[in-house]
């Protein structure tokens, strides 16, 4: 059982940071609704208010790591240009997708959208974290700020989901492969 370095980085980016961010988004939305919905009369302790700020700040760090690993580690491998005369495009995912009309839209729509829309997520969640940390318990007195934060977290989830969906589909149609091979487990030969 083995995996290439590029494939491992793609997994860390998508299934590690990206998927964790999507799950954390659901948690943030539930927590925001639970705390501030009109039916909620329970007073949260200061420690729990701090928790929300820290939770959103960790999400922001996760979102930034996700987009930076995507743009500066994996994307250069994805868009690599094959040298003239290259017979197999397997190591050049962008060119592989564009080589067939059945797959070219995965790049021209999928990757072109993903590479930009993904950046909305860290911007939105950084704002949400900053507001939660700055206002703490006082956020209870600012329903309009809370509604705006909630709206931005929803859009953050939407943009991250879009990027995640296209990332998974792109990697299914033209996997980012190559680099040194890491041997995970030596199987038994029959």
């Amino acid at each position: 059982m083995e995996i290439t370095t590029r494939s491992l980085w793609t997994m860390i980016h998508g299934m590690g940071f990206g998927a964790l961010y999507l799950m954390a988004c659901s948690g943030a939305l539930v927590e925001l609704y639970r705390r501030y919905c009109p039916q909620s009369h329970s007073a949260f302790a200061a420690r729990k208010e701090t928790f929300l700020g820290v939770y959103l700040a960790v999400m922001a760090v996760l979102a930034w790591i996700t987009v930076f690993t995507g743009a500066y580690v994996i994307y250069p491998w994805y868009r690599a240009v094959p040298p003239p005369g290259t017979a197999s495009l397997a190591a050049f995912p962008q060119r592989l997708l564009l080589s067939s009309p059945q797959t070219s839209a995965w790049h021209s729509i999928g990757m072109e959208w993903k590479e930009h829309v993904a950046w909305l997520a860290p911007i939105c969640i950084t704002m949400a974290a900053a507001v939660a940390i700055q206002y703490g318990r006082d956020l209870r007195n600012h329903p309009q700020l809370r509604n705006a934060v909630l709206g931005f977290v929803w859009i953050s989830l939407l943009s991250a989901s879009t990027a995640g969906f296209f990332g998974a589909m792109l990697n299914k149609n033209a996997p980012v492969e190559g680099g040194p091979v890491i041997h995970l487990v030596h199987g038994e030969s029959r």
Partner: protein
Amino acid sequence: MNAHTTFAPPTSAIRPNGAGAAAILAAGIGSFLIAVFAILADQSATIKSAMIFSRATGPLSGVTTSAILAWLAVWVFLHARWRNRNLAVARVSAFALVLLILGLLLTFPPIADLF
């Protein structure tokens, strides 16, 4: 934009909403700028070339770095101006959400290609 503002009294127990409004509007502007810079880089060869901050990543590096720097600059500027004020946050956040949704839509290639 015309946001009705009042200075919060110094003894007010409730923190003024200006700092929050600054963060929200800056995030909307930053998201919108991602789409604007991406469209500009797509339409102009000169801008596309100027946006290559990292040769490996290509124009995406300049588009995103420029938008992030602009977002942070706008945030710092608005925060300095609004932090002690109470603003009409509903209007500010509605405007910011419109910018955010425009950013989301304008990054979609079939819409971006209309320009």
